[in-house]
Structures are given as C-alpha cells and as structure tokens.
C-alpha cells in the first residue's frame, strides 16, 4: 500500500528543518531593519505553511520553498518601495560603478558580509533572487526554475555576479581565513 501523502504540517516541518537558516538569510537580504525583518521572516513562514495546503509535488520542495519565500519578500519590497520611494538598481548598473578603495578591509569577514548585504539589498528583486540563489549554492537550472528567467539570461547574470563579487571583494581574498 502506498504511503499517504505528507500533510501540510509535515511538509512545513520538513521545509523549516531543512531551510530555516536559508530563509533567515533570505529575509536578511530583503530587509535591513531588524524589527521589520522579524515580521518579514514571520510572514514568509506563515506563507510557506499556508502554501503547503496546495503543494502537489509538481516541483521539488526546495523550488517551492524558495519561490514562496522570494515571492513573499518581493511583495514586501514592492510595498516598501511605495512607502520609502527607495531606488533599486540592476546588476548591469552595479557593474559600471567603480569598486570601493577599501578592499583590504574586506579581509574582515564580518565587514565583507556587511558590504555584501548592502550590495544585495540595493538590487532589484529579480537580480536579488539570482544573487541570493547563487550565494546559497544553487545551480543555474534551479535558479531559472525559481526565478523564471531564461537559461541564457541566468548564465549572463551569474557571470556578472561573479565578476562583480570578484572585483569588489578581491583585495581581502587571501587573508580572511
């Protein structure tokens, strides 16, 4: 007899056990203010739990979790942009901005992470999804599945991200371990 499909609660527990830390990092990348970030993370968890009512296995659990989390966070960004008239940039624009001259300070891991967060938080939602997925170690195929961006565009964006990160964090590369 086939095993019964997992319940909404079971699916949520599995997702939370596996991706709890990744979701926290994702919320950190979407919201700088600690208080608001707690609310955003809570919203993501609630959205995730509720979404599992309709989970039918059409995509992997990982893809589902990231889509729900990114889509919830994207709504948050759209809402915040309306309230704060915040200007976000694309990867293409960031590439043309010269890197800071304080590269040697990137040797400090905490400082490097702060700068990385600043960079991620300044990006438009879709570019933010790509760079976050890249930092989480997802491959191009998975990034395309989560974001809906064509494989060619994902490859271009990853190439840009690699160059951008290498250029901005080059100096501290040899000393931070």
């Amino acid at each position, binding site marked *: 007899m086939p095993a019964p499909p997992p319940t909404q609660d079971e699916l949520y527990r599995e997702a939370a056990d596996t991706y709890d830390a990744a979701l926290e990092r994702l919320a950190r990348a979407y919201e700088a203010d600690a208080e608001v970030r707690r609310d955003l993370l*809570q919203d993501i968890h609630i959205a995730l739990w*509720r979404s599992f009512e309709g989970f039918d296995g059409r995509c992997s659990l990982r893809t589902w979790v990231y*889509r729900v989390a990114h889509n919830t966070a*994207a709504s948050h960004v759209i809402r915040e942009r309306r309230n704060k008239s915040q200007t976000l940039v694309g990867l293409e624009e960031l590439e043309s901005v010269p890197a800071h001259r304080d590269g040697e300070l990137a040797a400090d891991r905490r400082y*490097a992470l702060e700068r990385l967060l600043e960079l991620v938080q300044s990006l438009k939602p879709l570019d933010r999804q790509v760079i976050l997925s890249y930092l989480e170690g997802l491959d191009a195929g998975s990034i395309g599945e989560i974001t809906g961006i064509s494989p060619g565009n994902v490859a271009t964006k990853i190439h840009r991200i690699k160059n951008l990160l290498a250029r901005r964090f*080059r100096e501290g*590369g040899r000393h931070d371990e």
Partner: protein
Amino acid sequence: MTNESLPNDRLKRAWQNQPSEGMRMSVDEIRRRAGKFQKTIYWRNAREYVAGLAVVVFFGFMFWLSSDVLTRVSCGLVNVGVLYIMWHLHQRGSSRNLPADLGLASGIEYHRRELERQRDLLQSVWWWYLGPMIPGGVAFVVAQARTSPGHLRHMGLSLAFFALVVALVGWLNHWAARRLQSRIDELNALEGQR
C-alpha cells in the same frame, strides 16, 4: 582554482555560515499567527468600509439638512460616487489575501502580476476613482459657490481649482502607471529570451 573564483567561493561560504538569530516557530505558533494575520486583513478591510461609510453618512446628513435642490442633488451624486468606489475596491480586493499559487509562480510571473495589478489600478483611476467623483464634486462646488457674493468669479475659481486637483491626481497616477510599465517591460524582456 582561479583568482576570480577564490573570493566568490569564500563569499559563498561566509554567506552560508552566517550566525542564526534563531527565530524558529512551532506549527501551532504558525497556525495561531496565520489566524491573527487573517484577522488583521479583515479589520483593514473593515476600516476602509467604515471610512467610506462615514463620507456617505456625512453627505447623507447634508442632504437631509439642506433645503436647496442643487445641494441635495450634489450630495446624492457624491454618495453614488463614493459607493461606486467602495464597490470597486471590494471587487478588486484592496487588502488582498495570500495568493493561492505562491509556490507555483516563478519570480518573474509573480512579480509581473503584482506590478500589472498595480498598473491597471492606476491606469483605470479615471473610471473607478476620479470619474465617479466629478459629477458630485462639480455640482457641490457650484451649489456652494452660487450663494456667495460675486458668485460667478467664485464659482469659476472653485471649479478651476477642482479641475486642477483632479487633473493633477490623474496625471500622477498615469505617470506612476508608466513607470510600472517600464518595469514590466524589463521583466518581459528577461523572460522573452527563453
């Protein structure tokens, strides 16, 4: 390992090894907060309806209080306009619930849909927001201005001011819709090259 991939790998590791703030919640807690979230949406919608009804009550009271036909007609028209706007907001779902396909829609699909929803609301502002308020607004301005000394000049200025405000609100909405359209076009270009 190339020089280029070295900082990237290190950054990935640093990113993935960030200390956790430990905000995990139990399923019961999630369920409780999801219920609270629904109640918040319910009360937010209720507040919008109460605000609309307060306007209706105010102009209803003025309708009842006034003996002037044009003032009464203008109050009636304002209320029809307000009720139409409230009905429209209700149809659109001003404070929306959680979308059912949150896990099925890719980032582009979801983001584009959100932007298109906002753009459509802004683009159609003449039909559901400004338009319905114009007859009542004009009638009300005329009704109030015609009783004042030098009423023609007063009426002209009041109508010009009203028209200016309406045109400005319309233009701002149109401008915002165009900005959203350019973001939608960017998303379409990203998806188009599949």
